[in-house]
Structures are given as C-alpha cells and as structure tokens.
C-alpha cells in the first residue's frame, strides 16, 4: 500500500496534469466512491496523508447546559447498551453500562423493598435512600475533594474531556496518559500562577503539569480512601434530614386525595363499586333456580348480600329473607319426589338406633308403595301445607305404621310386637318432639313450599343492588376516614399527633441530658415533668409562653388534617348513604308488591320513631353511628391528650398562684394531701389503676383545726403536715368519698386561671372547658371509678369503657416519655454519624494543604 501511495505521489507531483492514458492507475469518477476502500478517491483527496486534526476538547459545561448534557449522555448510554448487545461496544461504552446496571439494580431493589413497606412514606423513603446513596457517591468527591482542591490550588481534579470519538472521560483518569495538549499554554500558565509557580523557571509548563498531575493523583487517592466512610454516612444523613419534608409533602398529598374522594362522591363511588355481591347472588340463583328456599340456601343468600358488613347485618338479612320470601307470609311446606325415600331411610335409621329386630323394622317401616299412594291421594298431591296441616300427614303416616304392626302381629302370633314394650318405642322413635328434628317431620321441614322462583329472584336482585351501592359508598367513606383519621402511621391525625408531640419537648425546653436521663424509665420522666411544670407555672412570662405555644400547636390541627372536628361533609355523606339504603330496603318493590327488609334497615340506621310528628331514626346503635364514631373517637382520643395537658398546666398554675377556691375552707393538712395527690394525678393520670383507687399519702386522722393556707415556693408546696409522720405511709380510707370529690373538683371543676383564659382568648383555643366537664361528669360519676359509690355528683355515669379511655387520652408523662425516647434515638444517631461525617470532612479538607508539593528544579530555576 505504501509503495502504491509513494508511487502515486511521485507521479502526481512530477506531473500535475498527467494524461489519462499515461497513468498506472486510472482515476475514474473520484466524486463517487467505490465500495470498500477506493484508493483513487483517497489519493485524489490527499486527506489521509496528513493526520486529521484532533477534535478532543475539555468539557466546560455551564449549569444551563445541564438538560442538554443529560439528554446527550442518556442517548450515549442507550447507544452503549445497543452496541453492547450487538457486540460492537468499546471499553468506554462497557464502563457506562456498569453505571447503568448499578442504577437498574438499585431501582429494582428499591422497588422490591418498597413492596415490603406499608405506608407511602416508607415506600418513598426506599427510593430516596437509593437516590441519596447515588447522590452521595457523586456529591462527596465534589464537596469534599473537587471544590476544596479547586479553591486551594486552582486545579479542577474532576475536569472532563471529550475525545475525538465523543467519549467523555476524566482528564486525570490515567496519570500515565494525560492529554495535556487539550490545555492551551495560556490556561496552563494561569493555573501555574494560581499554584504560585515562579514565572521565570525553565520548562514552566512541564513543571505546572507535573504539579497538577500530583494534586490530581493525591486527591483521587484520597477520594478512594474516604468514599467508603463518607457515602453511607452522607446518604443516611440526607435521608434523616429529608424525612420531615417528605412527610409534609406526602401528608398534603394524602389530605388532598381524601378530600377529593368526598368532593367527587359519585365518581369515587363508581370507582369503588365492586359487583362482587351481585355476581355472587347471580351464581347462587343460577345454581338454585326454582329450588326450595331451605334454611341453608337463605343463610347463603343472606351472607352474600351482606358481604363486607358485620355478622349482625347477616343475621338481620336472614330474618328478613325468611319473612319476605314466604308464600303469603306464612311458612308452608310441600312434598318432593325424594320425600318418600327419605322418610323410609330416616325411619329405618331411627328404629335401628332403638335396637329393634331387623325383621320388625322391615315390617313396620312404611313401604314405598304405601307412601306413594298416600302422597298421591287428593289430600296431599300438589298441595302446599302449613305446619299445622303437616300434622295430618304425619298422623296418616303413623296410621300406616300402626297397620303394619297389626299385620306383623297377625303373621307372627308367637313373637308379636308387644303393645306395652315395642309398639310405643316404634311410634315414639318415629315421631319425636321437634318438627325440624324428628325422623319423618324433618323430611317435610326440609322441603319448604317457597322456592327460588322468578319473583324471589327479582326481590333478591333488588336487595343485592341496594347493598352493592351501600358497600361502594361505605368503602369511600372508610377510605376517607382512614387516610385522614386512622391511627396508622402517616395518616392525617397521626401526622398531627407526631408534629404536636415532637414540638412539646422544645416548648418545655428539655435539654438533651434530661432526655437522655429519663428515656429508660417513665417514673423518672414523671418527676422531671412535675418539676418542669412547677417551674413554668410559677413564672408568669414562662407560663404564658408555654401555654400559648401549646395552644397554637394544638390549633394547627386544621392545617394538618383540614378539619377540627368530624367534618360536615363526612356526616352528610354518611347520612345520605345509610338513610338512602335504609329507605330503599324498607320498600323493595316487585310485581306491584312491596317487601320490607326492616331488620336490615334498622341495623343500618336504627329503628324509626315518631318525634314531633316526624318519622326519624332513633339514636340506638346502628352501623351509621359506628361509621361516624370512628372519626369522632379518633378526634376525642387525640384532643383529650392535649387538652388534658393544658388542664394539668392550668392546675399547676393555680397551685403556684395559691388560687384554688375548692380548698378554701379546708384544713391545711387536707389541702396539702389533695394538692399532692392532684399534682401527681395531673401528670401520671391513669398510669396504674390501683394508684387512683387505693393507697395514698394521707393521714387518717388529720389536724382539722389548722385552716391556714398552704405555703408555696416556686410552684412547690412547702408541706407542713404531709409526710411529717414517717410512721404513716400510704393508706387507704375507703369511706372518705369527700377526698375523691375534692380532687376531681380541684382538677376539673375549679374555674380556669385568668392567665389561662387570656391565652385561650388570644389563641382562639376552644374545647378545654368541654373536656373538663366531660371528664368531671362522665368519669367522676362512673360507678367504681375511685371507690364504690364515690360519685362527684352522686349520679352514675353511662360512659362506656371506651369512652372513658378516650376521654383520658394519654397521660402527660407517658406522652413525654415516648417522644423523648424517639427524639433521643434520632438525635443520638445523628450526633454519632454527624460527628463521623464532620471529622472525615475536616481531615479531607486539611489534607489539601499537604497536596501538590513539588520542589522547584535545582538547576536553572530562574530562566
């Protein structure tokens, strides 16, 4: 080839315009290239003789180029995958595929782990975890290495370049092959100035390059040594920091989703509608068309009609089906083709159980002919009969048996069926007391006259439609209630709870040490919290600050769940759904007749009563109320907790300012006892039941003469009597109902402190007074709350256990204990790994100052 080229060049140069026929190689149509290698064209162009100019260049992207760069890089990756698959990829492309594999594998792992998680946040955090890990891998070398190196030395150690083939690579990737020609003299000299390289040394460019190389190699090594520590720590810290934001974002998203459900109720119901009930009923109809409506069948239909509702609804439906599907409203029976055979079999079995001789059994049991003749007689053929009328049939069958006995006795005079012994046994065995259980009557009971005929089918279909609609509506209501008010993590109220609870530690100014010391034992928290409340309540400014902050936080309920109580929309839609279904069920129309499913209707909405001339639903327990109470109970539990805390603070304030009126005229010793007990109760409330009911620090024989006021110092009572007699420990005085009433009065009836009222008015806080009244009456008047007959107003409360539980909410010490433990875990974790991360960053940054040191050339330093 070389020879050919040389020969051509020589000829070409010697003879610039040669004649065509004098050439060794003809140049024919050089504009259109021949397939494969067209030497004529190449020679004519003469382009390949000289190397093509390099197209490599340093990559200098601005932030505005990012989208374009991302698209370009993505296209490159896709091409790399294609080339890899077809076996044409180069090393650079295969390297890119490794990054792609890492991302694909990471995404599939995150997706898998997300399926293990239940809530949107935990699912999202899996992806955030992956993202933060990949981001940390990219951010650490930039923040800790590249940028500091650039700031200190002026050298970008992560400089990228694109080679002539468009492959993007790190400039210092291989220190043995650095494409220095991509940097101009001007650029290198500028970096040299920044590196303080004297201007007048020999081979300045080489010296600068060596310095740059050294800095890059050192930093790349530092990167490799630190990345292993830094990436996981950074990733964990990023996740930790981003969690509250994710929480807030997802909460808003969830609340909007829930509101959409109720605001677009027809669409939501349509989306939720499942034809399960209708389809199941259709299959039952298909299988049992025109079959007798036996108990089992009715039970099955009832169960399917109330699919997704409670067991009581099924019972009610069963009763209604029995009532509505009877002929003329009365239970009637008929005879089927298998009735005779069943009667014979049952009778034989019954007599065998009575241990009678087989010969006797064969003789006395009615034969098929006898029964067929009887059933086809005018009295029974093709007729339906009531339970009473069935008795005639049973008597007739009994008559046959008696006749058979007589015949047997005539045929066997030596061993007859004795009137005193065998005969009564036979007759009693066949008849029995219960209609549904006796051997013969149960056959008739199993063939009711009512059948699953066209009429019955239509009624059932209508009911199925009503129940399907109701189920779809309740599903929407359930979903809405769940998203907003469930106790599960990441639902609206739960987020609100966490938000308020977390902020309490700051409001009460808990120090990290206090949290650390009390985290393992709730009783330690009780003492600490009491101490804090005493201090806060004895300081006017502090009390107002704390109470105001709590009230404002509690009032944020509207921001978090967009409601402060059971929303009217929810109440309206619940009423619509249940009342509508109930109304329809009371009046199912078929063939001009009306069927009332009263039991089911009552179970849904309660019985109808006449109130002021209007027919309304009573307040009896029904599914509609259950649907509403789910939400109201959740509100009650959460609000009670925070209102209880506010009430406790108010009580401490009243003690601190000596303004408890309920104890005014009481002996000092009683005052001290009540205040001590109430203070403790205000903090640990229902920690253990027996503490409230039994032994207390009291004197059974108090000093009734000293009516002076208690002495208060910085919120604490300086007791004169309480605990002064070490021989008296905790005692139980069951007959002293006054003490319990005093405690309840002091805590829940005593008017609020003026400061409290002012803060309430400033922050528009509502509900605490109602809470106090509810606890006072509903818990204070509970039978055997403190002691038998210890009522605050001598009236028994009808509050259920659940209501009492919700009214009490969580006690302040338990609340602070739980929040404290959580806060401790998070902050301890952050502290440890934050310190590791910080220390690593420090060491990495400091290292920069030792990098890039190079001796100036000894000879001829100055040029």
């Amino acid at each position, binding site marked *: 080839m070389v020879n050919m080229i040389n020969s051509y060049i020589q000829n070409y140069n010697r003879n610039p315009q040669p004649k065509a026929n004098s050439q060794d190689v003809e140049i024919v149509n050089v504009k259109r290239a021949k397939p494969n290698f067209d030497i004529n064209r190449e020679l004519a162009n003469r382009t390949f003789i000289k190397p093509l100019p390099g197209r490599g260049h340093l990559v200098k992207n601005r932030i505005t180029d990012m989208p374009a760069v991302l698209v370009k890089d993505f296209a490159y990756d896709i091409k790399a995958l294609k080339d*890899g698959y077809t076996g*044409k990829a180069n090393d650079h492309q295969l390297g890119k595929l490794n990054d*792609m594999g890492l991302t694909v*594998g990471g995404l599939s792992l995150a997706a898998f782990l997300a399926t*293990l998680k239940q809530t949107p946040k935990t699912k999202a955090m899996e992806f955030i975890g992956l993202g933060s890990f990949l981001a940390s891998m990219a951010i650490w070398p930039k923040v800790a290495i590249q940028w500091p190196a650039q700031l200190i030395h002026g050298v970008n150690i992560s400089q990228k370049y694109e080679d002539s083939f468009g492959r993007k690579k790190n400039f210092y990737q291989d220190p043995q092959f650095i494409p220095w020609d991509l940097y101009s003299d001007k650029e290198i000299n500028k970096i040299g100035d920044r590196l303080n390289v004297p201007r007048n040394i020999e081979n300045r460019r080489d010296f600068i390059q060596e310095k740059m190389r050294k800095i890059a190699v050192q930093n790349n*090594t*530092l990167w490799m040594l630190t990345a292993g520590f830094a*990436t*996981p720590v950074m990733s964990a810290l990023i996740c930790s920091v981003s969690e509250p934001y994710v929480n807030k974002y997802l909460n808003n998203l969830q609340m909007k989703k829930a509101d959409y459900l109720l605001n677009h109720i027809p669409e939501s119901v349509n989306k939720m509608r499942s034809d399960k009930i209708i389809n199941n009923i259709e299959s039952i109809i298909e299988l049992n068309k025109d079959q007798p409506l036996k108990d089992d069948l009715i039970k099955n239909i009832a169960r399917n009609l109330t699919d997704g509702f409670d067991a009581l609804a099924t019972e009610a439906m069963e009763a209604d089906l029995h009532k509505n599907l009877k002929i003329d409203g009365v239970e009637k029976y008929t005879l089927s083709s298998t009735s005779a055979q069943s009667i014979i079999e049952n009778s034989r079995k019954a007599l065998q159980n009575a241990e009678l001789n087989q010969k006797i059994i064969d003789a006395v049991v009615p034969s098929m002919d006898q029964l067929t003749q009887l059933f086809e007689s005018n009295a029974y053929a093709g007729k339906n009969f009531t339970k009473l009328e069935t008795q005639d049939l049973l008597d007739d069958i009994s008559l046959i048996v008696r006749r058979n006995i007589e015949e047997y006795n005539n045929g066997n005079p030596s061993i007859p069926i004795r009137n005193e012994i065998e005969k009564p046994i036979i007759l009693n065995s066949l008849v029995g007391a219960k209609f549904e259980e006796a051997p013969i009557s149960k056959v008739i009971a199993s063939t009711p006259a009512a059948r699953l005929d066209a009429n019955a089918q239509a009624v059932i279909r209508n009911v199925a439609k009503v129940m399907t609609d109701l189920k779809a509506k309740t599903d929407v209501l359930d979903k809405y209630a769940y998203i907003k008010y469930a106790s599960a993590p990441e639902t609206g109220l739960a987020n609100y709870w966490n938000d308020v609870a977390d902020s309490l530690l700051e409001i009460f100014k808990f120090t990290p040490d206090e949290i650390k010391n009390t985290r393992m034992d709730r009783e330690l928290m009780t003492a600490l919290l009491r101490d804090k409340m005493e201090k806060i309540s004895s300081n006017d400014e502090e009390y107002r600050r704390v109470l105001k902050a709590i009230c404002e936080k509690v009032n944020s309920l509207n921001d978090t769940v967009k409601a402060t109580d059971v929303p009217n929309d929810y109440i309206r839609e619940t009423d619509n759904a249940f009342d509508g279904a109930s109304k329809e069920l009371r009046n199912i129309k078929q063939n001009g007749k009306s069927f009332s499913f009263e039991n089911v209707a009552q179970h849904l909405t309660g019985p109808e009563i006449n109130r002021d001339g209007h027919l309304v639903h009573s307040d009896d327990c029904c599914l509609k109320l259950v649907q509403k109470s789910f939400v109201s109970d959740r509100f009650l539990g959460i609000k009670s907790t925070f209102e209880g805390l506010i009430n406790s603070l108010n009580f401490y304030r009243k003690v601190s300012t000596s303004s408890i009126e309920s104890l005014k005229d009481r002996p000092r010793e009683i005052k001290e006892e009540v205040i001590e007990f109430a203070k403790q109760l205000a903090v640990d409330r229902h920690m253990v039941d027996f503490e409230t009911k039994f032994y207390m620090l009291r004197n059974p024989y108090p000093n009734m003469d000293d009516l002076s006021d208690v002495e208060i110092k910085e919120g604490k009572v300086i007791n004169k009597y309480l605990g002064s007699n070490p021989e008296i420990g905790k005692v139980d005085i069951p007959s002293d109902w006054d003490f319990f009433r005093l405690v309840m009065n002091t805590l829940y009836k005593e008017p609020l402190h003026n400061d409290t009222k002012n803060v309430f008015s400033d922050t528009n806080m509502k509900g605490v007074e109602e809470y106090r009244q509810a606890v006072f009456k509903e818990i204070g008047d509970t039978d055997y709350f403190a002691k038998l007959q210890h009522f605050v107003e001598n009236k028994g409360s009808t509050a259920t256990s659940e209501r009492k539980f919700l009214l009490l909410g969580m006690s302040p010490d338990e609340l602070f204990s739980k929040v404290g433990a959580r806060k401790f875990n998070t902050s301890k974790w952050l502290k440890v790994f934050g310190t590791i991360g910080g220390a690593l960053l420090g060491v990495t940054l400091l290292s920069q100052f030792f990098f890039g040191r190079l001796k100036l050339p000894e000879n001829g330093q100055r040029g």
Partner: protein
Amino acid sequence: MILPITNRNSSLNFSAKEQNEENKLPYTHDTVLKNTFSNRMRIGIDKLTNAMTVYPAKGLSGSKNANFYEFLTMGMVPYLVGSGMLMAIFNYNKPFSPFDKKAASSLGRRLALGVVFYAVAKSLSKLLITQPVKWMTGVDTEQPYAKVQYELPESVNDTDITSIEYHKVPESTEFVRWDLMYGPDDNAKTRNEPYDKIAKKLGLGNNLNDSDQEAKPRIREIIIKSATAKNIVSYLWAATGVGIAMQECWDKFFNVATLKFWQGKKFTKSAVTFVKTLGESIKDFYKGDKNCMNKYAGKALLGAAVLGTIVGVANVMTSSNKPSKLDSADVIEKSRKYVVN
C-alpha cells in the same frame, strides 16, 4: 543519568546466604495464569493488600508511577469500607431503650446481611454468564494474567522498578491481549492450537489455515456481549440477594447465630441453621405476602435476574459476525492495472 534496570530484587548483602538465593520476582514477563479458584483467591488477596497499603501510599505521595490500574484497584477500598460502614449504620442501636433496640436490631441485622448478600450475589452471579460461555465457546472471559510493569525509578537509589499487575486477557475489548492467547511458539500448529479449539467450538471449522484470524472477531464479540450481560445482570442478582436477606425468617437465625468457630457445637448449629434459613428465606422471598404487591415483587425480581441471565448467555451464543464471504473481486479489480514495487 542512566539508571540500572532490573527485574530482580538485587539488593546486595554480605550474609552467609548462598548467592543463588536471590528473591526472584514471580514473573519475568507477562504470564497467563490458570483460572482456578486458588489463583483467583491469591490474586484477590494480593490486589486487596496492595489496595490497602502500597497503592494508597503511592497515590497520596503523588508518585509518578501511580497509574489507572492502581486507581481502579483502590476502588475495592470504598466497596469494603462502605459495606462495613453501612452495616454499622444499620446496627447502631446501643444507646437505645431495650424495646427500640430489639426492633432496630432485627431490621439492622437483616440489612447488614443484605450488604453481604449484595456483594456475594453480585460476584457469584457473574459465573452464571462466564461459565456457560466458557463451556459453549471455549472463550474464558475471565482469564487472568500477570503483567510485569516497568516503572520509572522514584530516586537514584531505586533499582526495583518492576511491579506486578493482575489483569484479564480480554479486559479491554479494543486491545485484547491476543498474543497471550497463542500456544507455544514451537511451530505453527502448536502456536494456533488454542484458537483451533475455539474455532472448532464456535463452528468455524477444523484445521483452519488461520484459525486465529477467523476466531478473533468472534471472540471479541463474545467478550463484549458477555461483559454487557455481566454489567447489567449482576446488579439484578445483587438486588435479589438483598431481597432474600430482608425476609423475616432470618430473625430466627440471628437468635442462634455465632461466629465463634472454636465453640464447635454452637458454630455447627449456627451453620446448619444458616443453610436452613437460606432455603426458607428464598421460599418466602419467592412467595411474598399474600395480601399485597410483595406477592409478585419477589417473583418479578428473581424473574428479571433469571431472564436477564438467559437472554445474556443466549445473546453471546448468537453471532452476527459470520466468517467473511467477500469475493476477492471486491477487493482487487481485475480490469485495472496495479503497480507492485
């Protein structure tokens, strides 16, 4: 100045040792190594030791001999340290209250196991590609060789200027070390023997005149395709490994697990439980929870990994690179005159 160049450790000494007892470097020229488990282990340990000691020292001092191989080898350090760090982060629960600690440690241990399974599955899964390819084509895409690297002396006293690097013959698809794939140089037959074998396995024919030239394009294609499959599929297997480690049944294993191998009975029990739990966890991973998406997730992830492996191997076995069928007329036009010097 001209420095003495040697590939031996020729430090002079005046001890009573025999003169021939010079510590020879294991290799004097680039040498293909057998791809055995023991060799792989030895290479791995050698690389890891260097990555932790020599290479960081060279890198931090900015040595003029620091190169890309050393940088890449040092990539093992963040991998290992990062894994340890992740395990530590997942399991840092010492100051927590007992209840919190129990809940955190259950998840933490499984996540730590996930880190181990990630690495194990990622590295073992590559065998699922390389082994079938080796059996079916005769091309060992992981064939190691020791490269003798000549370095610049760091100082005038530095006479030891060689270092050994462990590479793979087909490491670079653009610069495959074809020379290391030839047989003994004795004669043409033995020289091409390895290529003959590959050509035969690839169905290119027997007794080819130039089996190397015929086989090389196909070998390159095999290397690229299997590298593509490895790069994608190994991460799917790694994800599967983590998925298996995340199964709740591992909690039972951690209750009896011990690494104290000197407590024979306990350790054996622990090992047996590990195997049993592994089986159970794979089953649980595959089945998933009945009531949610997880029911399909395990199957999908495992399915993707298996499918990716099958497609990857199948793709390696199908070739678009058929032997050249070009007519000589396309290259040399008979109607023309050509000058031959």
